[in-house]
C-alpha cells in the first residue's frame, strides 16, 4: 500500500474569531512528512487554534493549509485524513474501550466483525487488551490516554493532531506516556503535531519545535536549536535554561563586542550570527545556566572566561544532579547558575555569600 504523504504547509494562515484581533496572525510553516512537531507557547498564543485549523474543526480566516500537496481548507476532517486526539481525551463515556476505538470504523460502515478485529489489533498495540470491555470511567488517566491515541490512530490518518495530550496526567505518568507517544509515532510513521505548554515535553519529543507568541511564530527549528540558540529574549526565557542579560554596546572589536554592565570589566560577547552591532545599541544576550561557573572573589577565573560579575547568593535549591543557585547578578531579571552537584559540594556556598559569576566568553549568545 502506498502511504500518503503527510507533509504540511501553512501559508499566511490567519484566524480571527471576532473580526478584529487575529488569534493566529500570518503563520508560515513547513512540517516534513513523518515529523514529530511540537507547538509550544503560553495559553492563548494560538497554538491550539492552529491545530484545530489543521484538523478541520476551524476554518482559517485567510491563508492556505496544504497537506500532502493538497489544499485542505474547507474539507472535513475525514477528507483531510487527519485525526485528532483531544485534550482530556473526549472518550465516549457510554461506549466500551473497544467500541470507542472502533467508532470511526463503525461510522465508515465497516462490518461489525471487521471493525472489532481491527480495534482488537489496535488495542493490543496500545497494551489495553485486558481492559477492552471497560468503560472509559473505569480506566486510569494513562489508560484513557492510550484509548484516545488508539481511537485516533485506527483510521490510519496521515497526520495525527494532539491537543495537550499529557496535561491531564501526573508528572510520573507524563514522562512515561511521552515515551509511548514517541514510540507510537515511530511505529505508525506518520506526522504528529503536538500542542503543549511544557518546554521539557516539547524538546524531549519533537523533531521540530515551534515557539509561538500572540498568534505568531517566534522560532521554529530542531529542539536543540531552539533550546541552545534562541533567536530572541522571548524564546530564551520561554524555553528556559538561559539567563538573559541586556545592556548597551560599549565597543565593538572584530569578532566580538563588549556590553556595558554594572561589572567593571563589561561583558565580552562573540558576534556569532549577529552581523551588525554598533556602539550604543541596546542588546540582549543569553548565557546558559549550566555554563555559568561560580568563583569565590579573589580566586582565578577558569580559562577562557573574561567576564565575571559579582553577585550575592539569594537562594539555593538542591536538584539532585545539580544545584540551582539563584543570584542577584542582574538588577531586575533572575540570574541562575546550575552548578554540578559534586562541584558545588566541594566548596559549598550559603545564602548571602558573595561570588563571581563567570562563563567562557564563547558561550554568551547575542539575541535578536
Amino acid at each position, binding site marked *: 500500500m502506498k502511504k500518503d504523504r503527510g507533509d504540511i504547509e501553512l501559508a499566511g494562515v490567519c484566524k480571527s474569531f471576532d473580526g478584529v484581533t487575529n488569534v493566529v496572525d500570518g503563520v508560515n510553516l513547513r512540517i516534513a512528512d513523518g515529523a514529530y512537531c511540537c507547538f509550544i507557547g503560553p495559553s492563548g498564543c494560538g497554538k491550539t487554534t492552529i491545530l484545530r485549523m489543521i484538523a478541520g474543526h476551524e476554518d482559517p480566516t485567510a491563508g492556505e493549509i496544504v497537506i500532502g500537496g493538497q489544499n485542505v481548507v474547507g474539507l472535513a476532517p475525514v477528507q483531510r485524513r487527519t*485525526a485528532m486526539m483531544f485534550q482530556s481525551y473526549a472518550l465516549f463515556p*457510554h461506549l466500551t474501550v473497544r467500541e470507542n476505538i472502533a467508532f470511526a470504523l463503525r461510522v465508515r460502515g465497516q462490518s461489525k466483525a471487521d471493525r472489532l478485529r481491527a480495534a482488537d489489533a489496535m488495542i493490543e498495540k496500545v497494551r489495553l487488551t485486558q481492559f477492552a470491555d471497560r468503560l472509559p470511567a473505569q480506566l486510569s488517566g494513562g489508560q484513557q490516554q492510550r484509548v484516545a491515541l488508539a481511537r485516533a490512530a485506527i483510521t490510519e490518518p496521515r497526520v495525527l493532531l494532539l491537543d495537550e495530550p499529557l496535561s491531564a496526567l501526573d508528572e510520573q505518568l507524563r514522562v512515561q506516556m511521552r515515551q509511548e507517544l514517541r514510540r507510537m509515532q515511530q511505529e505508525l510513521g506518520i506526522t504528529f503535531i503536538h500542542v503543549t505548554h511544557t518546554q521539557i515535553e516539547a524538546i524531549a519529543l519533537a523533531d521540530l519545535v515551534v515557539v509561538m507568541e500572540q498568534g505568531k511564530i517566534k522560532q521554529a527549528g530542531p529542539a536543540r536549536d531552539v533550546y541552545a540558540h534562541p533567536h530572541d529574549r522571548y524564546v530564551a526565557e520561554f524555553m528556559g535554561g538561559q539567563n538573559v542579560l541586556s545592556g548597551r554596546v560599549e565597543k565593538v572589536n572584530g569578532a566580538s563586542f563588549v556590553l556595558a554592565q554594572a561589572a567593571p570589566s563589561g561583558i565580552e560577547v562573540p558576534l556569532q550570527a549577529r552581523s551588525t552591532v554598533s556602539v550604543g545599541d541596546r542588546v540582549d544576550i543569553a548565557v546558559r545556566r549550566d555554563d555559568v561557573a561560580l568563583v569565590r572573589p579573589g580566586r582565578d577565573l577558569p580559562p577562557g572566561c573574561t567576564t565575571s560579575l559579582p553577585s550575592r547568593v539569594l537562594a539555593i535549591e538542591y536538584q539532585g544532579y545539580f544545584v540551582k543557585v539563584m543570584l542577584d547578578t542582574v538588577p531586575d531579571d533572575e540570574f541562575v547558575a546550575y552548578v554540578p552537584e559534586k562541584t558545588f559540594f566541594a566548596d559549598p556556598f550559603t545564602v548571602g555569600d558573595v561570588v563571581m559569576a563567570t562563563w567562557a566568553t564563547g558561550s554568551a549568545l547575542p539575541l535578536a
Partner: protein
Amino acid sequence: MQPSQNPSRANLAGWLYVSPLVLVLVPFFVAPILVVLAASFFATDGFGGLTPGFTLASYFEVLHSALTLKLYLATIKFTVLTWAFTLIIGFFVAYFLVFHVRNQLLAIGLFLLCTVPFWTSNIIRMISWIPLLGKEGLINQALLATGVIRQPLEVLLFSDLAVVIAYVHQLTIFMIVPIFNSMARIDKKLIEAAIDAGASRFDIMRLIVVPMSKSGIALGTIFVVSIVMGDFFVVKVMSGGGSASVVSAFYEDVGVLQYPTAAASAVLLTLVLVAIISLILRTVDIRQEITR
C-alpha cells in the same frame, strides 16, 4: 467524622438530615396511600358509609368488569400516543436548543419561552384550543375557504385527536426539561471527536446524543406516562365526554359514593404505574446516569 466513636450521635444526625423529607412524605404521601389502601378493603353500604373490615369484593368487582380492560386500553392508547409525540417534539426542541443555538443566553431565553404556556392555567390552555379546532374554528374555516373540505371537520374537537393534542401541548415541556438537562451535560468535545472520526449528523444523533440523553428521556417518559395515566380532566373536557380513562371511571365511582371500588381501582392503577416505571428504571439506570 468517625461514626464508630459515637454511633448514637451519628444516627441522630442521620435522622435529622432526612427529617424534612420524612415530614413532607409521611403526611402527604404515605398516609393518604395507606388510607386508600385500607379503604379498598372496606365494605360499603352503598351510600358512602364504610364498614371497616377486610374484603376483596371491590377488587373482584373491578377486575371482573369488562369496562376496566376497555378503560385501560383507552388510557394506554392516549399514553402511548402522547408519549410518542412529546418524545419526538421534546427531543428535537432540546437538541436544537443545546446543539444549534450557539449563544447560551439565547438558548436559556428560548428555553424559558417554552415555559410561557404554563403562566396560565391548565383549563385556559385547553379552552384556548376551541377557537382553533372547533366547528367554526380557524382550521375548519381555513380549510373551508380554500375548498379542501365542504363540511367542517368534526373530528378536530371533542375527539380522541383533541385529547392527544391537549396532552402533547401540556406535557411536551416535561420531556424538554429533563432531555435538555441531560443533553446539556454532553461535552461538546465528544461531538467534535465524533465529527473527527467521520460521523455524520445522523450518526452523531444515533450513536452519541440519544444514548447519552437516555436518562433525560427516561425521566421525561416517567413524567408523561404517570401524568397521562393519572389524568381524567383533559379526557373529559377535550373529548366532550365521548372518551373515558381509568381515572375518570373512579372519579365517577367517587361521585356515586362507591369509595371502596374507587380505592381498589386507584390501588390497581398505582400498581400498574409502579410496574411501568420500574420497567423504565430497569432499562435506564437513571441514578447512575445522573451522578455520572
